[in-house]
């Protein structure tokens, strides 16, 4: 879905990614690589496979949009890296497959940088990354430096009427900042509390659909 954000033509992809065509930049948030591993390590038996699928989806997005830069708005990793875990090899393959990619991450609260191999060429940032007209950060908040884009919240919205109910991830665009849906498949969601002037774009399996403003209250709990 094409959309104007802060005067820039942007593309919202139903695979939960944002594309900035002018800068050939793919933006995603909250990938949570290795989440399944972290669970298993802590004695919670969840099967593996979701990290591999997430990386495959990311690769496909980079290829299709011919992105030159990947910008992750925090929580690329779910927990401390363990080099012997199988998904580590998936990540090796991913970085090897995109040798020319500029790979930048604004560090999120889950990211542990220790042990991340240098040859993955991830450029970490602690502070927000300014690239006018945007300021990229993890937990988006209004910024004097530009329109802020972030993640952290994993926003979803629930649409309902008398006979139907759908809970969908959303791009949540407010007056001064926007929040991306979480990218990782093994991530939960929290209801976006959209106010009247916010824009919501819902992610369906096939495409992104702009929601009319009348939906902005729909997310608020009823009764």
């Amino acid at each position, binding site marked *: 879905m094409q959309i104007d954000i802060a005067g820039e033509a942007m593309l919202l992809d139903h695979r939960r990614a944002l594309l900035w065509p002018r800068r050939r930049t793919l933006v995603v948030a909250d990938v949570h690589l290795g989440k399944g591993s972290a669970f298993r390590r802590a*004695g919670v038996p969840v*099967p593996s496979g979701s990290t591999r699928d997430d990386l495959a989806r990311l690769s496909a997005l980079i290829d299709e949009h011919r992105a030159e830069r990947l910008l992750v708005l925090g929580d690329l990793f779910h927990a401390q890296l363990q080099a012997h875990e199988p998904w580590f090899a998936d990540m090796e393959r991913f970085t090897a497959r995109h040798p020319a990619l500029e790979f930048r991450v604004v560090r999120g609260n889950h990211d542990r940088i220790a042990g991340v191999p240098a040859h993955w060429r991830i450029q970490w940032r602690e502070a927000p990354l300014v690239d006018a007209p945007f300021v990229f950060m993890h937990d988006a908040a209004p910024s004097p430096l530009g329109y802020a884009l972030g993640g952290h919240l994993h926003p979803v919205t629930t649409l309902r009427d008398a*006979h139907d109910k*759908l809970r969908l991830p959303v791009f949540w665009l407010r007056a001064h900042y926007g929040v991306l849906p979480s990218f990782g498949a093994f991530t939960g969601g929290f209801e976006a509390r959209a106010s009247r002037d916010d824009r919501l774009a819902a992610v369906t399996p096939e495409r992104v659909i702009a929601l009319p403003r009348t939906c902005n209250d729909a997310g608020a709990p009823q009764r």
Partner: protein
Amino acid sequence: MPTLADVETWYAARGWTVFDFQRECWAAYAAGESGLIHAPTGAGKTLAAWIGALLQADSGGDEPLRVIWITPMRALAADTAAGLQQASDALGAGWNVELRTGDTGSAARARQRKRLPQALVTTPESLSLLLSYADLIPQFAGLHSVIVDEWHELIGSKRGVQTELCLSRLRALAPRLRSWGLSATLGNLDEASQVLVGTRRPARIVAGVAPKRTIIETLIPPAIQRFAWAGHLGLPQLPQVLAALESARSSLVFTNTRSQAERWFEALSSAKPEWPMALHHGSLDAQLRREVEAGLKAGELRAVVATSSLDLGVDFTPVDQVVQIGGPKGVARLLQRAGRSGHRPGETSRIVCVPTMALELAEFAAARRAAAAGVIESRRPLRNSLDVLAQHVVTLALTGQLSAAQLRAEIANTHAYAALSDAEWNWVLDFVMHGGSALAAYPQYRKVVERDGLLHVDDATLARRHRMSVGTIVSDTMMRVSYLRGGSLGSVEESFISRLKPGDGFVFAGRRVSLLKVRDMTAYVKPGSTASLIPRWMGGRMPLSSELAGTLTELLSEPAGAAGAAPELQALAPLLSVQQRWSQLPRPGVLLVERAASREGQHWFVYPMAGRHVHEGLSALLAYRLAQRSPLTCSFSVNDYGFELLARKLPAIDAAGLHALLAIEDLDIDLPASINASEMARRRFREIARIAGLVFEGFPGAGGDARKTVKQIQASSGLIYDVLARYDPENRLTRQALSEALEQQLDYQRLRETLQRLRSGRIEIVDVERFTPLAFPLWADRLNSHRVSSEGVHERITRMLADLEAAASETAAPRRARRAKA
């Protein structure tokens, strides 16, 4: 060592006589037998079991642990222990009775770790925990018996399964262990007793004093025409209830839900502020509940409004009168509640019933007929619950003293796992040792390890986390409600508080309070507010028992208003005649279907009169099969009388077409498919995930790093379900969710029978102009509806958006008009 003579002297001193059934129990206990004692509350069951044990006391305070007394309610444990101690002291047995529950302090725990008392009162959860400590094992060797109080409350639930597993372990540690259960009357006493004592021993069934006569009366609303067809408050009946309370010195007012209890307490106390009254339900702070219980015992209270939290246990001083607000849903439950009045064996007990919607009138009449005919509900024990077994295996692995083969042999004697296949057992072992079956990838996972042929849990963090999550009770995320200056009121669901802003008022624990702030899972409030918002708690609704549903249909099909008909049905006659005029009355051999249209879409109201469970299955099946024929998104909701399907557009169909949709053929394919399509299995998985250790609730007291680590591995059960369904479709826990939904939620067996019955009957389709008296409650109480869809997300969202737009432009117009008028 006390003797029978001592007992008789003590009884005589208190003006009691020994009942024959008590003597029978004591003799059976002395002979080493096990069994089940069933009798109404207050008939002397407790002493029938306990004195049997005391008569075997030999060296008093020097003895090791002799009796474990299991009670289902932590809140009752203290009273129970006090009662047992009193009897022991009076008979000079010299035994120490102590408590071990989640409330037991650390000093007492440490003391018990070194030396357990002669008798321990505990809950299934705390007992499981005790069994996880290796150093306690020798202390169980001298155990004489386990006595399970309120067994009818446990059997039929996973807590019952957990109890069976604990018993199997104790039998292994103390081979001559007796098991005794105390139970209210059940429809399946033979089965219940066999489950309790295990599959390898005989069980003696001892009947207490003959059930007392119960009089079931109904407050008939004066004007049935103006009486609500739906809604579950029944407050219009307040004046009559007040009159009933006026006529008695003390009353217990039972409601079916906590919200209802709050609402009625509020209404009663504003009508009669001068009456000493109290409120009692499971979400109130334990201290508040204890005060109410003490007030009740001391006879200081005119009335107590309560939920099932007062159904159980302690022998309260009798009240003069019991009032039941809302349909009883089960015969046994109504009789149990009635038993709270005239609390002496053999006396007549009386219950005054207050309907909250018209059809409940018929429920009361049905309950009276069923009770008179001796029709009592059964509680079916569960089998092969792999989640509970997985938890148990980890619990026992914590001791590091058992091999897998020993464990398998122990549980083989339980009813719950007697039919467990080797494949299932191996899967459970794989699950706790490797995460899943060998085929699915669960790298790095480890919890239970096998070393020197024994099962161990080596990781201290895992061990601690497991001990914190032992149990099968799954609750919603609760938030404590406290006054800022101290004093806890209890807890409400987090989702309720999250909807409030500071300053908003609500009614809780019978008090009007307003929210100040929320910190650390506590909602701080101050007294006073004008709002009368009342929290709702999930999961408070009981389905009509099949026994009661059967009697109900029978009653409704009898000529209404006939001479000799129950007064409730005579009162219902005008309403039934409206139903008759607008549509038809349901009758045996005919399935009534009403079709109606509203601004919401097209409705089908279908009345198989088979109880909520069967209706849930039938509606899912029908919705699923409809959606298979053409793209459709359809929601459905049920009550005990029928179900409603609602879609924007439902296909035109005749009786023959409907017969085809309700065909029994392919049921075994379509029903599981409809359960999956409507996400019923996914919802069911919540409990399984919690019990099997896949999700955690927040741990109180865990701070700093511990909290952070737990946060890192917290995911909703729905999310875990989706990951399992995708990456490990053979996982047996997701399969268990499906079979639980089939067998427990939908009552598969009865559903099959219902379909058989419908096949040979007629279907009458009636187009109605307005919602009929039968349809209206379905429409008005549409709670917790499910849906099935065969459309793509894109189609659904587009349609919803179009509807939303239409609705928005519709509501905008009248609003402008109103403003213009003002």
